[in-house]
């Protein structure tokens, strides 16, 4: 602002100087012109007077001229320099004129001289030579500005011929008859100049004052507040957000300042929040026990936390802006090179629990679990990768210890297993020996006792059955021939027929009991056998209102059985149960594969104990909700010819035959009352030896 003020003042001063100069020049030119006009006029009129030396005439002439206020003096001289008439001269002037007299005597055209007297008075002396009329004065020589040396004509004359000019000048000089000299005082001009200068000064001063005032005013109204605002921005630029622009005014600038302050306040608040947030984040990162680092997309480390520097042994400044390779050990996992990790991360976004090694400043490797995720900006462009790593040295050490211990344990275990194997083999040998023994026993029993009994029974059966067949056929023939109207005859024939059937049933039972037909042993799934059996006896359930509950079963090991015989066993047991529920009830069939337990051996209704503790068996349970078995007969149910059915079709051979069949399979059959009521028939089948 001050600069502008100075500029205005400078320009004003320059303008006034120029103005004064210009004014001065105009005044001087006017003066000179006046002089020339007067001198020319005088010279023209003075010719006669000079030629005639009529001084009174000349005096009259100059008298008129001297009246002009600017004219200080007037002189008419002849060519010899004698003053013919003069007016207005004084000693001071004469002294000064002496210096130019000689020059003036030689002039052939108008001439202007500046004179400054001893007393300090200033004059212009305009002198013009006076020529006789006989001589042609050069054209323009009588012009107003004959002192102009550069006029074309004179120039030409000068250039065309020096000699001609000289001779002409000589001629002019010779034709001169005198000279008129008019002195013009510069006093008036000076006073005019002085006034002009004063005016200029006043104007300049006014301008300067006004400029100064305006500047001050402007500075007060606009510049100061703006400067304050500027200052404010500088403070804020430096980060001093607490700075406030003080109250300025109520105008627009004041409002600007207010909103500036508001903006600053907002800025300060948001910056404080940012700082707080950053401090919080920094604190979180710093406090993390795990290593955290951020790398940029070029794989250059940007940020690390204190855990990282602690583990790696670097100072923070030593690893930031360094390539990530610096902290990853190459020999850890050949696949997991920093390059691979970066590539995989950019492709998949995250990478979890990668076991790799860090490389510390001292060159040690530290096993870590590394997880990383890609950091993207809101446009999805990858900004960097955030990596988290956990030092698992301790864990590895513990793992190693565990592994070593495991190895030892395994060794111990191995020897145990070997011992167990040996024991098992021994047990197997024992078992085999036992089985062999049983087989032999069984074969002996089968071949000797049973075969004898069987052959006997077969013979007896054959001998009895043929007569029975004859009786049956005969009775049937007779029944057709005998009169039907005799009820007695019909009854007798029916009795005979029934007797034959009963006898046949008994014989059949005897044959079954002695097991004439040999076992046809094959591998069977006992569940399939049960299902087949249930199909055969289905109508019995319906007839007796018995609900069948077949419990779910899984695949169980196959058993080696004679399917038909076991079907016979199952039918027998199921029908017994159905018959034990004359008013209906539930019959449950349950199959499971398990090991023989102590409880399985404590109760035995067989002649032999076929089961061995711990061996694999398939157990079939048939449970009813019937009347149960009276305790006093429970130990007799397997005795041959013992029956509770009286004369109602029981032979007393059913359960003995069933028991015998199970025994032949070297299984076990138990029939017991259930605590809940009803009877449980349980059959144990040995599973196939694998």
């Amino acid at each position, binding site marked *: 602002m001050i600069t502008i003020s100075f500029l205005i003042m400078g320009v004003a001063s320059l303008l006034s100087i120029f103005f004064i100069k210009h004014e001065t020049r105009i005044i001087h030119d006017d003066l000179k012109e006046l002089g020339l006009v007067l001198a020319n006029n005088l010279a023209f009129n003075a010719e006669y007077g000079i030629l005639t030396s009529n001084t009174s005439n000349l005096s009259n002439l100059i008298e008129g001229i001297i009246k002009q206020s600017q004219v200080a003096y007037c002189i008419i001289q002849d060519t010899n320099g004698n003053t013919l008439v003069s007016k207005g001269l004084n000693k001071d002037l004469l002294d000064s004129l002496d210096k130019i007299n000689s020059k003036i005597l030689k002039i052939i055209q108008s001439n202007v001289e500046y004179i400054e007297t001893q007393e300090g008075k200033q004059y212009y002396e305009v002198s013009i030579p006076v020529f006789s009329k006989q001589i042609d004065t050069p054209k323009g020589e009588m012009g107003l500005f004959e002192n102009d040396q550069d006029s074309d004509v004179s120039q030409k004359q000068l250039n065309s011929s020096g000699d001609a000019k000289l001779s002409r000048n000589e001629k002019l000089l010779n034709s001169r008859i005198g000279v008129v000299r008019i002195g013009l005082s510069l006093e008036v001009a000076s006073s005019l100049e002085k006034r002009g200068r004063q005016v200029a000064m006043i104007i300049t001063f006014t301008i300067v004052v006004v400029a100064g005032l305006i500047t001050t005013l402007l500075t007060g109204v606009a510049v100061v507040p703006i400067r304050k605002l500027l200052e404010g921005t500088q403070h804020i630029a430096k980060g001093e957000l607490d700075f406030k622009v003080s109250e300025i005014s109520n105008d627009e600038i004041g409002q600007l300042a207010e909103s500036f302050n508001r903006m600053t306040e907002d800025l300060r608040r948001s910056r404080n929040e940012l700082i707080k947030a950053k401090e919080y984040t920094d604190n979180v990162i710093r406090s993390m026990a795990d290593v955290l680092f951020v790398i940029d997309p070029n794989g250059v480390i940007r940020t690390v936390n204190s855990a990282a520097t602690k583990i790696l042994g670097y100072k923070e400044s030593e690893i930031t802006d360094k390539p990530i390779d610096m902290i990853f050990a190459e020999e850890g996992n050949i696949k997991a090179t920093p390059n691979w990790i970066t590539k995989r991360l950019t492709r998949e976004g995250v990478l979890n629990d990668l076991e790799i090694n860090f490389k510390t400043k001292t060159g040690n490797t530290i096993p870590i679990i590394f997880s990383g995720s890609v950091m993207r900006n809101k446009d999805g462009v990858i900004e960097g990768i955030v990596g988290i790593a956990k030092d698992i040295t301790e864990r590895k050490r513990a793992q190693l210890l565990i592994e070593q211990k495991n190895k030892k344990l395994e060794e111990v275990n191995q020897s145990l297993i070997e011992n167990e194997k040996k024991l098992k083999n021994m047990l197997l040998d024992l078992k085999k020996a036992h089985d062999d023994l049983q087989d032999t026993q069984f074969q002996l029993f089968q071949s000797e006792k049973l075969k004898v009994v069987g052959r006997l029974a077969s013979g007896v059966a054959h001998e009895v059955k043929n007569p029975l067949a004859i009786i*049956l*056929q*005969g009775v049937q023939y007779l029944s057709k021939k005998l009169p039907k109207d005799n009820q007695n005859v019909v009854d007798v024939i029916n009795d005979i027929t029934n007797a034959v059937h009963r006898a046949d049933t008994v014989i059949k039972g005897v044959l079954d009991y002695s097991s004439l037909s040999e076992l046809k042993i094959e591998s069977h799934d006992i569940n399939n056998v049960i299902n087949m059996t249930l199909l055969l006896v289905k109508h019995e359930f319906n007839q007796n209102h018995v609900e069948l509950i077949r419990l779910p079963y899984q695949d169980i090991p196959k058993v080696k059985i004679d399917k038909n*015989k076991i079907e016979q066993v199952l039918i027998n047991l199921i029908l017994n149960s159905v018959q034990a529920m004359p008013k209906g009830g539930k019959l449950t069939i349950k199959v499971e594969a398990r090991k023989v337990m102590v409880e399985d051996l404590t109760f035995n209704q067989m002649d032999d104990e076929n089961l061995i503790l711990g061996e694999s068996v398939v157990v079939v349970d048939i449970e009813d909700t019937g009347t149960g078995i009276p305790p006093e007969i429970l130990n007799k149910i397997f005795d041959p010819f013992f029956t509770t059915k009286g004369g109602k079709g029981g032979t007393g051979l059913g359960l003995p035959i069933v028991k015998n069949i199970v025994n032949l399979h070297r299984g076990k059959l138990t029939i017991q009352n259930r605590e809940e009521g009803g009877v449980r028939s349980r059959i144990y089948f040995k599973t196939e030896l694998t």
Partner: protein
Amino acid sequence: MDKKKILIVDDEESLSRAIKLNLEDTGEYEVRTENRGSKALGAVHEFLPDLVILDVIMPDMDGADVEKLFEKDQIAKNIPIIFLTAIATKDDTKDRGTMIGGRFVIAKPISIDKLIESIEERLRLR
């Protein structure tokens, strides 16, 4: 319509006779009886039966041996056989007899109705 010819071979002659009487009584069968297995083939050649009822256990020749002779004979080999046996098996539970090892077996004693059913079935399947 001709009567169906049935040959019964059984050493138990009274049984053979009773069956013969029962069958002929129906009026649909012509029955010849033999009491020895060795006579069976000759009887087949003479009588040309539609079906043979063969006892399993006989003094001179078992039913199985008779069957073997039949299989080698051009005439006998196509004639259906019902084995009648006193040796009871579990299959006895089926009154009408059943197939055992490719043979049709009926256990003694058998009622005449069941026997006729079985005969008719064998003849149908011929």
